[in-house]
């Protein structure tokens, strides 16, 4: 290996490590897993919304939920409201309670944090 190539080895090493680190728990598989788990809660979240519409038939808007997974179990152990246009605590708690029960099929080595928007709109 010539002198010039040697100079770049450490930099390449740093980049490789950073890329590897960035890839941990960040890949498409994890993203798909999160989406799959969220979709599995669709019916329950819809039930939360249907109940809320009984109280307020004009209720609609976007709820941004922040989720953080536990690296060992994959559980969505820190689900919280990041922003809400709903202004309905009961609906927000119902949704958060449902999401907090979710769990990744394949737990990641690192904790994964994601923002998940939920758009609520009456059918009729």
């Amino acid at each position, binding site marked *: 290996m010539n002198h010039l190539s040697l100079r770049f080895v*450490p930099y390449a090493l740093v980049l490789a*490590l950073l890329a590897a680190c960035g890839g941990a728990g960040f890949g498409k598989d994890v993203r798909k897993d999160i989406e799959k788990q969220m979709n599995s809660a669709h019916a329950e979240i*819809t039930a939360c919304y*249907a109940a809320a519409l009984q109280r307020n038939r004009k209720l609609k808007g976007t709820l941004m939920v922040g989720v953080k997974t536990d690296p060992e179990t994959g559980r969505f152990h820190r689900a919280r409201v990041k922003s809400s246009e709903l202004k309905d605590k009961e609906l927000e708690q119902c949704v958060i309670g449902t999401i907090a029960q979710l769990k990744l099929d394949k737990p990641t080595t690192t904790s994964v944090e*994601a923002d998940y928007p939920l758009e*609520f709109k009456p059918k009729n």
Partner: protein
Amino acid sequence: MQRTSFALSLGLACASLSACSIVTVKQDPFPAMKIQADRPEAPPPRVILTPSHIQITEKIQFAFDSAEILPVSHGLLNEVAGLLKANPQIEELSVEGHTDKRGAAAYNKKLSQSRAESVRDYLVSQGVERARLVATGYGFERPLSDGEEEADHELNRRVEFNILKQGMKKTLVQEN
């Protein structure tokens, strides 16, 4: 120089690796999940504007033997106020209080007047111009039923909103 650079890079790599194990990886936002549910049937309107009066399908509730409007009726009166604000062509509205036939006529007349004034004042507090409202208590002078049953008394105890004066309804039309 090269050794220093190598050591620095290695140090950085180690730091990155150790940070990697404790850092939380932040995901890009996900596309919004659409949640849709059936809305319950809209309740029938409680306040209806007719050419001659404002009809309310619920009664305004007062405390017993008092002109104090019960909070349960605030929503209904808010709707009346909303309707008046949306219909400025109603220039003068008579707020009329009526009682049942039990009790002294003079007392009933005074009570119905106080109740009519209470309703007027509430509407004013909700943004309706005072000059548009006339409060009148009729006591038992204008019963809807002459019967003696409790249902007849209930029917006669009421507040009515009759339009005394109205102009043309103005509608905004956009010019081409």
